[in-house]
């Protein structure tokens, strides 16, 4: 019986060590295959945020141009 119990303990120990080693080799898919798009598993910073209005974003250049036009006389 001591040999059996020791064998079970060795099996569990080896399994834990090899399991930890196995899972430390793995990396999340957003690390192994990075891309610019949004991933559900790791949305990162590419989110609409809490102040999203639903309107398409206004380009910075057109905003400046609009301000410049409004300042011109006539």
């Amino acid at each position: 019986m001591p040999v059996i119990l020791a064998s079970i303990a060795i099996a569990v120990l080896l399994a834990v060590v090899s399991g930890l080693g196995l899972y430390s080799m793995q990396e999340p898919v957003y690390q192994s295959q990075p891309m610019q798009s949004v991933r559900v598993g790791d949305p990162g910073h590419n989110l609409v945020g809490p102040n999203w209005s639903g309107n398409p974003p206004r380009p910075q250049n057109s905003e400046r141009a609009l301000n410049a036009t409004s300042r011109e006389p006539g």
Partner: protein
Amino acid sequence: MLLRSRWCPLVALVLIGALNCPVRAQHGQDPVPPASSAPSSGSNPTEQAVTEQQLFQEMRKLEGRITIPDYKAALLEQPQGRSYQFFHERVLPWLMAVLIVAMVAGLTLFFLLRGRIVTQAPETGIKIKRFNTLERATHWMTATCFIVLALTGLNYVFGKRLLFPVIGPDAFAAVAQWSKFAHSAMAWPFMLGLLIMAALWIRGNLPDRHDWRWLREFGGFTSGTHPPAGRFNAGQKLIFWAVVILGLVLSTTGIIMLFPFWALDINGMQWAQYGHAAAASILIAVIIAHIYIGTVGMAGAYDAMGRGEVDLTWAREHHSLWAEQQQLRVHRDDIAGRAGAPAE
């Protein structure tokens, strides 16, 4: 005037009903007339659309364009995938169930017919060392791993069919997740134990001239006398080689699946699954027989691997050639011990 006033509400109701008809039709509240009675006013566009099945039959493969880097995800369906699905969902559960149930039924029948195999002569009380500590530790370590691997592997196939309806989705999700961890982790000590066992016992399990007689007499079941056998009889040799060969198949295909797409493509992965599942089905059935004969099937068999010692009577009856060799060795050791002892 009286007539006019009496019919006015009725006319108004009819007019309101007539005006209301298009509105009800737009809201889809009208009952749909039977197809046979209603004349068709046009074709249903979705009815004419091509189905996935038609596309698959025409093109054999369904592929698309994707934006993620994993190009394999662009392949949606292919013929091999359907064959694999048929195997995994239809063939494999039946294969496993039939093999396991047939083995248990066969052993039960054997036990009812033959009963427990006991020694014909009384025990002598003299013990012979059968397995040393390393052999027993390797056996029990590998056995522990195999039981965990078998149960967690069976969960892959039968879990959703048998366990899920009993314990519910939440508990089954947790069980399946931990089963997956245990299966992947226990595989490594199992492979280590398999290699050590193969190295320790391969010499004693090589075929010899006594094996055919043992098999012909079914270990003495048909002849009524124990055929001669060395350290391992032909039945034990069959189990040993089944464990080694099927264990190697399981190890190779298991490593392939532990590191997906590292060595093989999707078809190769599916073939690895075929081999893994088939080898596991056979080996589980073989090990059930091994557990039976090592416990309830034969008196004294557990002592060999449990304590490492067997009675001399058991050794003489089941492994007569090995028992003779062991007695000769002990006798030689005694003579050598006496010869080497200093004279007083």
